[in-house]
């Protein structure tokens, strides 16, 4: 029994050491902790890729973490607290709920650790800058393209991920307001939320289509929503115009095949890259702008392979 117990102990120790092995790092490198809103999602992996690129370029050690789902606000707080205990030189933070994070951000600020916000802003003046997409303008571009494709009149709908996050609010507002202001003959008949879940968004799309047989198009406001909308369209054999948001292998395939007319892409690689670059700039005492616009593009089957677009699309 004792032998077995020590065996278990030994296995645990080996597992731990094996896992922590690559983490043993040179102490003289700048240490930057990025706390993201997600991790597994391809979008966040692209942000991570950008951060890693900047890390290699500037010789920094960068860690990247995020909760399993974008509702786990408390888990993100635990990650931020652990990152603070690690005493990094700088922190990059994409807040799930900007209010909840304020006490910890204050703690970081008191400890003199510079903070760079990324993806979505924080309602606080603690972050030195925010590296983000202008989501209102990006969704307005989606509205323009939708109007063009449906001939400037008819009914459209929006399937978005949520109405609590900054990106959810900005993209819906950007699309709906642009339609109201610039296209009086287009009516947004429905705005629904599917939590960014493909399956849920599919079901929502089907119910919208069944309720509005004369619908001309749907805007899917993030990757999961957009894929869900396209799947709903396919399942019902509908001919509506679908415009998506972000990329990913599935969505790229749908744009290629024409199920989706096109999509807006952010520049996630740029978001990660600019965040790390701004953090290093802050450590070097550089002046940073309040917002770093990381840009967005509209892509469809005709321009997907242009080098400028292909560089920001991710699988």
């Amino acid at each position, binding site marked *: *029994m004792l032998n077995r117990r020590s065996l278990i102990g030994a296995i645990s120790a080996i597992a*731990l050491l094996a896992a*922590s092995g690559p*983490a043993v790092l040179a102490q003289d490198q700048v240490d930057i902790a990025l706390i993201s809103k997600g991790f597994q999602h391809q979008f966040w992996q692209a942000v991570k890729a950008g951060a890693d690129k900047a890390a290699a370029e500037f010789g920094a050690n960068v860690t990247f973490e995020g909760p399993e789902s974008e*509702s786990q606000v408390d888990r993100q707080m635990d990650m931020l*607290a652990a990152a603070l*205990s*690690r*005493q990094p030189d700088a922190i990059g933070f994409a807040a799930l709920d900007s209010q909840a994070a304020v006490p910890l951000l204050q703690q970081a600020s008191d400890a003199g650790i510079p903070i760079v916000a990324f993806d979505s802003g924080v309602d606080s003046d603690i972050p030195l800058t925010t590296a983000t997409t202008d989501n209102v303008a990006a969704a307005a571009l989606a509205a323009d393209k939708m109007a063009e494709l449906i001939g400037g009149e008819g009914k459209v709908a929006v399937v978005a991920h949520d*109405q609590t996050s900054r990106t959810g609010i900005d993209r819906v507002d950007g699309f709906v307001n642009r339609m109201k202001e610039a296209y009086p003959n287009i009516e947004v008949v429905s705005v629904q939320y599917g939590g960014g879940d493909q399956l849920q968004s599919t079901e929502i799309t089907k119910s919208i289509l069944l309720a509005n047989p004369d619908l001309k198009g749907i805007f899917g406001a993030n990757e999961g929503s957009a894929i869900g909308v396209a799947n709903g369209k396919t399942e019902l054999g509908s001919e509506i115009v679908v415009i998506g948001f972000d990329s990913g292998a599935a969505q790229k395939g749908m744009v290629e095949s024409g199920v989706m007319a096109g999509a807006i892409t952010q520049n996630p690689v740029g978001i990660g890259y600019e965040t790390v670059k701004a953090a290093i700039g802050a450590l070097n005492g550089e002046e940073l702008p309040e917002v770093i616009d990381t840009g967005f593009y509209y892509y469809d089957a005709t321009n997907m392979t242009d080098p400028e677009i292909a560089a920001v699309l991710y699988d």
Partner: protein
Amino acid sequence: MTDTTAPGQKTGIRISGAFHRLLAFSGLIALVVVFSLASPNFMQTQNILAILQATSVNGVLAIAATLVIITGGIDLSVGTLMTFCAVIAGVILTYWGLPLPLGVIGAILAGTVVGFTSGTIIAKLKVPPFIATLGMMLIMKGLSLVISGTRPIYFNDTPGFTQISLGSMVGSVIPGLPIPNGVLILFAVALLAAFILGKTALGRYTFALGSNEEAVRLSGVNVDRWKIAVYALAGSICGVAGLLIASRLNSAQPALGQGYELDAIAAVVIGGTSLSGGRGTVLGTLIGALIISVLANGLRILSVAQEWQTVVTGCIIILAVYADILRRRKL
């Protein structure tokens, strides 16, 4: 979840419980030692407090799950019930503007009522606990979204609310040791649950139900009543968890909660409580919850890539349960 343990092994149960606690406890100590040696940033007051803070919600949920699991049941609704209770507190305090104590009572009462309902469905309608609480998990998830209008409810109008979790009574007495109130609440809930399990009729029936429900029934005990009581108690503890998380975030986040039941159950299992019922301790669960948070925190401090953190956590859970199996084979 059927049960084969013969009754009348009380001494054996007690000894094995103590032994397993020792095993889980030495596991916790081993982790703390490894991390302390690996990084000077681990054994800092600030970080220890962060670990305890991270344990508070999962610890309270795991205690609720422990009670139910000892009866041989399972409660998958603890996570979303917690969220539901947080939302109820938000409705009472923010929407209705009522005073803080009413919000606290309301959240705990909501948890109790929902737990009572789950217990009734299981005991009276004979729906298996897995199914009944799976259904309740979804009902709570949906109702939280409906009631809150899918937006977080903030507690900005209730200034004392964040003190429930983030304030520090200890810190106001001993300034160098600002243990958050949320951690004290976790310990208080643990003491209360341990007292109920060890010293009351409800506790004795909780174990008896898990060991041999049929025998308890045949000896003329009103099994349904006690079973419902256990689920209601677990529900009220979820209400406490709801207050803790809402207070920590200064908001009731309606989309949160699903998946948290698995972390709670993991803590219970690591702590040596048997999923087939009849056996378990609150102290073990507490240690199990601490192991999970120490592991997560330590791996983060060591800058271990997140993918590997998940792998290591999975290994530790399997090892903990394997150790439990070895021990039982020995008995």
